[in-house]
């Protein structure tokens, strides 16, 4: 006899489809005497849905029929004899009783879920034996429905980007759900593009914010290329929401979107991100397998075709800066390369990392200054000034190689060499106190201040077409 309760079952979130049904009222005591046909243990005929004991488990796997008008009775056996009588009920298979709390000894209540078709028989039996009982749950189905409603209601709370919690870290599933919600809420402004599939076959999504036009000049922002840098994906989610809020409200952002498109890739390394949640919070790279090595993953920010193989990356597959066997070996990188090449009209490219509080421009692979160094330096200075205006967070800026370290095969070196002049890399909070393990309370402030820097760059890009 199963002790798995139906309530637990419902918590697994299976959908219950209520069946239309007519309720047969239970006879009153006077009627009962008339209906009594002798041995109360004789079954009523089983019509309609008959619930087999083993069916419960099967129901877990496939959407089950309902439990219409099932009741849960609580029985108080006064003595051992009464306990025995209740035990006899257990043996009657055709009643299909589900003992939630089996008969043990007098004084301990016995709880039984009784299918509708057995209700009359059981109650008559109990009353005939003078066994006290009460109806604990009058209608199990409606209770389940209510619970299901509650669960749906709970899910309804995260069925809107207005009730989504931006001040906490989310899983890949939650972020992917968020993408769909945002698109559903703003179909005129936001669309979701799949640019590829990861090594482990997860879809790679980019949000497109556009008010029309045909292949307008565009701004690209990506977060989470290094999966352990959790504040970046979290900020990306916040940026997405911010854009939808500010379009039509904030003149600057409205102006940008009336002339340009924005592409936002929030989880740029989905396999790595899933891995940081499931196995190793400190995972940085992709999850691709390298032949002849036990080590997994390539550093996606060393895999681009700019100075590939130079000092500033590693040929050791076990290294966290492993560059891969060849440029764009990583599908996560190749997908973006394809997108950028096919689009052909991206004017600013911003790749977001953490931590160190820096705003960087090319190059990382060479100490040769970028031809637009002066302009990029000035723009970087304005951007970090805007950033620090909010909470006083201090950012340093400069070229990658002079400000942080030599890095070859990095994203913005490639995009810059493709002609995307305004190519920047951010390193968000903090400066080493928590590092990657930035407390969630800092997500929104980080996103807010970074947004000011992004707006500076985007506005500048709009006003300086090339």
């Amino acid at each position, binding site marked *: 006899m199963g002790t798995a309760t139906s309530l637990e079952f419902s918590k697994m979130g299976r959908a219950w489809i209520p069946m239309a049904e007519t309720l047969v009222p239970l006879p009153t005591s006077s009627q009962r005497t008339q209906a009594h046909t002798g041995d109360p243990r004789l079954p009523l005929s089983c019509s309609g849905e008959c619930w087999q004991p083993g069916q419960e488990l099967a129901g877990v796997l496939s959407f089950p029929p309902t439990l219409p008008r099932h009741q849960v009775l609580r029985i108080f056996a006064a003595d051992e004899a009464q306990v025995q009588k209740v035990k006899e009920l257990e043996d009657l298979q055709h009643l299909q009783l589900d003992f939630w709390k089996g008969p043990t000894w007098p004084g301990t209540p016995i709880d039984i879920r009784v299918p509708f078709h057995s209700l009359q028989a059981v109650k008559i039996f109990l009353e005939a034996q003078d066994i006290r009982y009460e109806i604990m749950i009058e209608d199990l189905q409606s209770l389940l429905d209510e619970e299901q409603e509650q669960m749906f209601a709970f899910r309804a709370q995260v069925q809107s980007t207005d009730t989504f919690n931006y001040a906490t*870290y989310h899983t890949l599933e939650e972020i992917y759900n968020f993408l769909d919600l945002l698109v559903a809420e703003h179909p005129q402004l936001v669309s979701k593009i799949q640019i590829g599939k990861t090594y482990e076959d997860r879809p790679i999504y980019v949000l497109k914010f556009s008010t029309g036009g045909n292949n307008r000049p565009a701004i690209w922002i990506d977060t989470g290329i290094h999966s352990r840098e959790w504040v970046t994906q979290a900020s990306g989610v916040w940026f997405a929401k911010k854009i939808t809020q500010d379009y039509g409200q904030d003149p600057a952002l409205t102006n940008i979107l009336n002339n340009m498109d924005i592409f936002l890739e929030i989880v740029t390394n989905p396999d790595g991100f899933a891995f940081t949640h499931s196995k190793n*919070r*400190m995972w*940085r790279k992709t999850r691709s397998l390298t032949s*002849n*090595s*036990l*080590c997994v993953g390539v*550093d996606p920010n060393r895999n681009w075709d700019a100075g590939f193989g130079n*000092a*500033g990356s*590693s*040929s*050791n*597959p*076990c*290294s*966290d*800066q492993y560059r891969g066997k060849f440029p764009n070996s990583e599908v996560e990188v190749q997908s973006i390369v394809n997108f950028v090449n096919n689009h052909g009209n991206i004017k600013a490219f911003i790749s977001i990392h953490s931590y160190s509080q820096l705003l960087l421009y090319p190059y990382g692979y060479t*100490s*040769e*200054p970028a031809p637009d160094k002066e302009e990029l330096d000035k723009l970087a*200075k304005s951007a*970090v*000034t805007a950033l*620090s205006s909010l909470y006083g967070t*201090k*950012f*340093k*800026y*400069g070229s990658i190689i*002079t*400000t*942080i*370290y*030599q*890095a070859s095969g990095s994203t913005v070196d490639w995009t810059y060499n493709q002609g995307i002049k305004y190519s920047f890399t951010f390193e968000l909070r903090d*400066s*080493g*106190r*928590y*590092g*990657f*393990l*930035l*407390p*969630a309370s*800092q997500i929104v402030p980080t996103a807010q201040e970074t947004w000011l820097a992004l707006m500076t760059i985007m506005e500048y890009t709009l006003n300086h077409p090339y």
Partner: protein
Amino acid sequence: MQPRGQPPFAPQPGPARPYAAPWALLLLQLLLTLRGAAVPLQDPAVPLQGPRGTDSPAAPSWAMLQQAARVALHFFNFHSGSPSELQVLANVQTGGWQVDPQRGYHINLVFSTESYHLQDGKPRLGKCFARVFFQNQKPRPAITMTCTGLSEKNRTLQEDHLLYEQLKQMKDALTVGGIPDDYGYIDPSVRPIWDLAILGSSYVMWERTTQFSYYYPLQLSRVKQWKTSDHAIDFDYTVLLHEFPTQEIIPCHIHLIWYPGKPLKVKYRCEEIQTPVEASSGTEEGSAVAATEFSNF
């Protein structure tokens, strides 16, 4: 434009400059540094752009000044032996250097600090004057320094004793792991363990830092042993260090013995990244160094 990063009276760095600067000149340099004769970084947002790609191949970058300040603080924290008085870098204010391509970099620094612990929600501000010598490519730079603006010595000792008492109460520290947790949270009840772990890590980070590599402690991942008595706390744990520029996460197993006011005793062993299975044709990646024990016991 005034060449940045050099005291006006300093000899120009050039090729094959022998390290024969008289001590008087060095002292003068230091004094000048202290009196701000070195070019100050007036705008903290502006990075110092050291001479780059010109005649002085060995000129250090602005980033190296930061590293020098950081490692000086690791050294300071270790030597102070006080988990309640840990300092972190705020800003490098002035930086001067002298380069000897044969031997290494002498870096003079003035930098501001913040206390790791907040007092009334704010960190306590301090200032340090340091001289850091990075011997070419070698770790464990030689450091002389002095800091001002710190808490009074007695007060520090008092706080350390309080911390000690708190730590003695922790019986099941052995089950502790993941401080901070994956979401950056540190429960206030285990905060003292984290502070002590950072103190021990400071020794390790000082010993490992070179002019190119520096470290941050990310997480206390495991406690192997925790013994408290009236005489000392005996703490054996694993801390994950984040190494720049390699981006590696280095687990270091640290065994320390601490008592307030006494010098910290530390023994440690860090794991290195695996070797590639296939033989590498390049020479840039050496095989994993066999982890050896280091200690000051």
